[in-house]
């Protein structure tokens, strides 16, 4: 059962995650009236990058390589504490949401350290911004977990994300909006960061990986696609009634949720520009306030 769960999860992560990037790009193209690249374009991109040979900077040390590796390893382990469709989490235990949050921290540590390892001012700038915004995104994420824990009186992600009958109440909506902002921040999407920008001064995540190329960049892209899928499936879990209508419908909900949220991100990216750098903290503080209010409402009512 557990082995099967691990394999199912790995298969979904590896096979489906790049599709979400394709969905976002397709939505953006359609919204702009273009035809756009085919949905499977990210698969080609990643495969091409993984096949290429590697060029490394003379300045760098092993830390530069550790960045992409830690990023991929931590997102895979993080996916193990999350229920996926009808498949239960292979590694569910009391407090697993803390592991979930801190694995992203591990990935952030090595990604930012790898950026500083190149000695480039632009990458240092990206690393500094990433570390700064995480200081606000992290409390928002933990507050969201706190609110969900208060709502479900469970200490494990699997329990917190259990769907509950009845209409969504106010705190629930607040948590969902807060989590969506955290998702945008963690995945470096507009309005926090623009993944398609061409100006290094305005980049965050892209600036950090300027020097990564070939297989290393392939791993970075793959890991960020997986992170998107993992966070989207977390949010989808809250939005759809999982575990009520049988396994097949659960798979459908997962697919619908992941693709749907990706499409929403695409629409959001087509309809607005990236925020000014000094405005981003306000948005993230907003996420903290949303999740915090939800927690206070839930804890006060309980």
């Amino acid at each position, binding site marked *: 059962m557990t082995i099967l769960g691990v394999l199912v999860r790995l298969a979904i992560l590896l096979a489906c995650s790049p599709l979400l990037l394709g969905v976002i790009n397709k939505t953006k193209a359609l919204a702009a009236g273009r035809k756009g690249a085919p949905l499977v374009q990210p698969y080609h991109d990643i495969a091409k990058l993984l096949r290429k*040979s*590697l060029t*490394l*900077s*003379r*300045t*760098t*040390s*092993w830390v530069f*390589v*550790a960045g992409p*590796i830690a990023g991929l*390893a*931590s997102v*895979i*382990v993080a996916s*193990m504490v999350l229920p996926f469709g009808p498949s239960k989490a292979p*590694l569910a*235990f*009391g*407090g697993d949401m*803390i*592991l979930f*949050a*801190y*694995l992203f*921290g*591990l990935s*952030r*540590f090595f990604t*930012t*350290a790898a950026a*500083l390892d*190149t*000695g*480039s*001012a*632009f990458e*240092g700038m990206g*690393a*500094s911004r990433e*570390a*700064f915004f*995480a*200081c606000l*995104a*992290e*409390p928002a*994420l*933990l*507050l969201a977990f*706190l609110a969900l*824990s*208060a709502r479900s*009186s469970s*200490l494990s992600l699997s329990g917190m994300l259990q769907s509950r009958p009845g209409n969504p109440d106010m705190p629930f909506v607040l948590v969902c909006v807060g989590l969506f902002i955290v998702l945008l921040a963690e995945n470096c999407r507009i309005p926090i960061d623009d993944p398609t920008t061409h100006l290094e001064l305005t980049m965050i995540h892209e600036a950090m990986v300027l*020097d990564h190329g*070939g*297989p290393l960049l392939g791993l970075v892209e793959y890991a960020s696609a997986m992170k998107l899928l993992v966070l989207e499936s977390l949010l989808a879990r809250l939005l759809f009634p999982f575990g009520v209508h049988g396994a097949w419908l659960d798979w459908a909900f997962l697919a619908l949720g992941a693709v749907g949220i990706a499409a929403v991100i695409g629409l959001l990216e087509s309809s607005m520009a990236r925020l000014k750098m000094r405005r981003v903290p306000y948005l993230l503080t907003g996420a903290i306030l949303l999740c915090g209010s939800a927690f206070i409402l839930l*804890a006060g009512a309980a």
Partner: protein
Amino acid sequence: MIEPISLVLAGALLAAASGLPGLFMRRANPWAQRIAAALMVLAGLAGIWGSARGIFGPPSTSFELPWPAVGGSLIGLDPLSAFFLIPIFLIASLSSVYGLGYWPQAEKPRTARRLQLFFGLLAGSMVLIALARHALAFLAGWETMALSAFFLVGLEDDRPECRKAGLVFLVAAHASTLALFGFFALWRSASGSFELAPLYGNLAGPAMAVLLGLGLAGFGLKAGFMPLHFWLPGAHAAAPSQASALLSGVVLKMGIYGLARMAWLLPATPAWWGGTLLALGALSGLLGVALALSQHDIKKLLAYHSVENIGIILMGMGLALLGRATGRSELFALGLAGCLLHVWNHALFKSLLFLGAGSAVHATGTRSLDALGGLARRMPWTAALFIAGAVAICGLPPLNGFVSEFLIYLGLFKGLAAGARGAALAVPVLAMIGALALACFVKAAGVAFLGEPRTPEAERAKESPASMIAPMAVLAALCAIIGLAPVLVAPALDAALSCLGAPALGSLAPMRELGIASAATLGLALVLALALARPIARARLAPTWDCGYARPDPRMQYSSSSFARSVNGIFAWAIRAPKEPRKLQGAFPAAERLEAESGDPVLDGALMHSFRGLERLSRFCHRFQRGLAQKYILYILIALMLLALASLPFGQALPFGQAGGPK
């Protein structure tokens, strides 16, 4: 079979005496240092063996020291003592081995013997504190610890910075002892004896509050949480690195030990006490890391980080005591386990980081982060071990810091279900502390060890000798073991928990699952690294691509101030903000300088300010005390006249006047 406590005592005596042989040798004789290190390692082996047996042994093996003046004094070994003894012996012996390469006697003949003498005394006195079951033995250990630490802080007395740090340290240490005098005097009147044994009777509310307050001041000044931390950063930065490792990794924990022992002495502390500790811990954690982030001296940064970690430890203890007072045993167990395990973990990774920083300082001769850079290619072992310590201190998964922070988090989440909802608000604070610590250590490790060297000194750096690397490797290995197999420390935690009356962890903490997750992460990373080994070996080397910029320069790299600047912005209200540069004006602007170092809000802000007021007052009084005999005679005359005037019956002036008035 030797009693565990005899082993510990033998270790303490060996440690305390480790610097003595050197006094009878020539100043530059390297054997003095080798003998000291050997004695310390021997002491460590005996002590760790004894304490490890003490943790699992019966709790009350105590015996009496003949001390006629006070009618005998007691020492004893219980699991709580033994739990705190292990880091004392471990860090002291590893640091003294490190000292062989870091502070070689042949090169530093003036200070090396003094360093070894007081280093040994410091270790021995801490053992006495942990063993004391009598107020006087405790205070004797406390004072010896304070004085020997003072001599370590001010070791390089030719540098004004060390003298100033030593002075501030001495004042704070004695303020702490003074508070403890008050504490034990009150303890004597409450319990009827100077013996330290749990007091089960009920104390009156105010008496309890005063007792707790005095304990908080006395032990808090030693533990160094906000706002009692003001002496800490200067002192730990000024001492030699192996002494900083002991000071930061272990001596601070004596304050925590004091608070834990106080919780053992007073089994019925009120709920507000736990809440106070939790709030102080959260404040200390947040501001400690914010201040650490704004430092540019690598050792000062690490020292401020101790303030943060002591805050996390205090949060655990606060949660535990809150749980104990309100009868929620799972909060008691999880909070205390997190607190105690973080004591061990912090001792391991903070010593590792101080030794690593010392290795970089040793190689380059500077503590300024902005003068380092690129050391990872020149000192690969030091860099790898420092980065391991950095991952551990950020509380990230495969290493030990995560386990203890996890236990505290879990306790806080459990508090939510158990009705302690206010305590759950510490969760986002802890999350923010974690993210800030990450920023801080990416900065420290990144600016010092990664990128290009910023100065010729950093360019010429050489790897440190094996005697310095090996102790760090041992510490890093222990960090990894606790992180990958937290199950191994659960029995020791349970023993210490039962000593304070908390239930065993058992199924409360998912130690096995944490170990699986950490091992999976590490294993997966290793597999990926193996898969990448071939392309990396074949990789083409080129300069860093700097976005088309033609002539990148090492000085253009992100420095420690530029990395931290945006984060410092959100703490501008608490940190004494660095000066902003003035706008350059005119076509040929004059030379301009920028200092981005921020001072300490408590020491430079509040304390120095109020002491300056005190100084003004004294200066005013000084006018009247000029040492002239004539003036003093005048004062005596004035005083006599005033007394004479006061004795005149002005009060009865009216009746007197009536009597002699017109008839």
